[in-house]
């Protein structure tokens, strides 16, 4: 028992060192692309466009909601979206087609962690740009500034991170199709439709018909935008149930990811490398 714990500790220390090294190198790399990241941050303005549409519509008072709710929700959705951006299918496909995946596969660590650390590094680089855009939003939109309760400030980053993990795993599973099909990135568009409509990105799920809302909560999508945004905007009092669902989805998707990886890597033909 003691030996197992020592081994586990050693493995954890090794993994921490690897992840730190990956994150450091990827963070340095992202700094090389800071202008591109600033543009990506600006391009994530969809929730703010939706805010404009919703606050001007007659639905602004739907279900007892009011202007303040929409403003807080969509600004929160903007923040959540900024830190849950995932492009692993595209990177994985490029690496697969151009043979860059081969050296990664020959190292005693799953390439999963390279892509994961690359996304985290991009998010860290994005922080100052997001703050800058938020200042402009707070100055430009009437009654848009609010300070969330202390527990929300603590819990929201966790909810956003878990949302990112769910989205990353979902995309990773689809990325594994690259092992079977050269153009798996087209599948990303397939994911985009449910993501747009069931995640709460274009409209809060509270505005949906009851049956559609209930159905949506059986999918992972509401936990990607809706839940973290509602939490950050102060509309969820007891988030425990939502966190549990996030963890359950991470567990389920992790199993699928692992199986998809094992199955896919057998088909790898190392083309171009």
């Amino acid at each position, binding site marked *: 028992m003691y030996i197992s714990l020592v081994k586990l500790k050693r493995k954890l220390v090794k993994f921490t*060192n690897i992840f*730190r*090294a990956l994150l450091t190198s990827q963070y340095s790399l992202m700094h090389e692309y800071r202008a591109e990241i600033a543009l990506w941050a600006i391009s994530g303005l969809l929730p703010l466009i939706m805010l404009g549409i919703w606050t001007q519509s007659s639905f602004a008072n739907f279900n007892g909601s009011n202007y303040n709710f929409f403003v807080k929700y969509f600004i929160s959705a903007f923040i959540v979206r900024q830190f849950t951006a995932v492009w692993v299918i595209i990177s994985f496909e490029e690496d697969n087609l151009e043979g860059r995946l081969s050296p990664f596969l*020959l190292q005693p660590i799953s390439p999963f962690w390279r892509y994961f650390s690359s996304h985290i590094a991009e998010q860290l680089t994005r922080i100052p740009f997001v703050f800058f855009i938020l200042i402009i939003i707070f100055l430009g939109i009437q009654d848009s500034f609010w300070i969330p309760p202390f527990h929300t400030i603590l819990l929201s980053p966790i909810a956003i991170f878990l949302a990112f993990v769910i989205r990353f795993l979902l995309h990773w599973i689809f990325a594994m199709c690259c092992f079977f099909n050269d153009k798996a990135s087209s599948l990303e568009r397939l994911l985009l439709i449910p993501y747009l409509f069931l995640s709460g990105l274009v409209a809060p799920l509270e505005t949906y018909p009851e049956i559609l809302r209930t159905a949506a909560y059986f999918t992972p999508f509401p936990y990607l935008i809706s839940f973290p945004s509602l939490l950050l905007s102060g509309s969820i009092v007891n988030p425990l149930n939502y966190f549990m669902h996030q963890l359950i989805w991470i567990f389920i998707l992790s199993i699928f990811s692992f199986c998809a990886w094992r199955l896919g890597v057998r088909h790898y033909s190392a083309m171009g*490398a």
Partner: protein
Amino acid sequence: MSNITVSSLSKIYKVPYRKPGISASIKHFFDRKYKLITAVDDISFKIDEGEIVGFIGANGAGKTTTLKMLCGLVYPTKGIVSVSGFIPKERNAAFLSQITLVMGQKQQLIWDLPPIETLKVNAAVYGISEKEAKKRIDELASMLELNDELFQPVRKLSLGQRMKSELLASLIHRPSVLFLDEPTLGLDVNAQLRVREFLSMYNKRFNATILLTSHYMQDISSLCKRVVVIHKGRIFYDGALTKLTNKLSPYRNVRIEFDKPQTLDDLKEYCEITQIDYAIATIVVPSSKLSFVVSYLLNNYTIKDLQVIETPLENIISELIRNGTN
């Protein structure tokens, strides 16, 4: 003791196949046709620990596919492979820590960052402490004559500097088995020489087993005592390089420059005189009689210059494949 054992190894790829034209394209969309291509066909060989073996053949002969199967990148269709006691396709972490694959046309270095960043990541991945990593980087960098280049973005390095950095990144974990796929591709003569010297040094210092593919026969002749020749997925020859050259090139060309014109009538029973141009003669001598003829010439004539011209290895391999195909 064999470090690499390959037994009846085959790889068949399923490749989409269609005729040109719009109608063929539409037909292909609904009814996809595939062609089975045998890249490697039932090959077997063994390589001992510390041995350097040249793996040669034309483009598409199956060299790279074999290397990919040996390092566990590609699953074999059939056959058994064992490398350092591991089955590569299982991709065991202990196995991956003992091998490396260096591809001349591909790189693992992060393009926009200095090589040192990749080296640090690789050191962490292989569980090498910072102190030990620094020691190894210094040691390998000195063997490869790399200094400030490690701190400049990869995109700013020359091809030779990039290849040397690539070798450093691939060897930081001191693998005992090296799979090298055209490591000198595109390098100038000096850089090729440096890489060859480094590989020879690495082999001697760490008793590493090396399987090398290259289209530059100079790489093969200066590093490998043994070669495996592959053609259309099958092994044509597996044995000593000298035996191969003696077998397929049993004659040597000798160019002699005398102090005055000569007829060389006394040599006609030992060799064939192909050309005499004033005081310069070219003769073809059987390899077995070469030392006798050269001694005879030196003892009986006044010679200004004498050159023994080896048949290029490229010609020998080409001859081997042609003979085998026929």
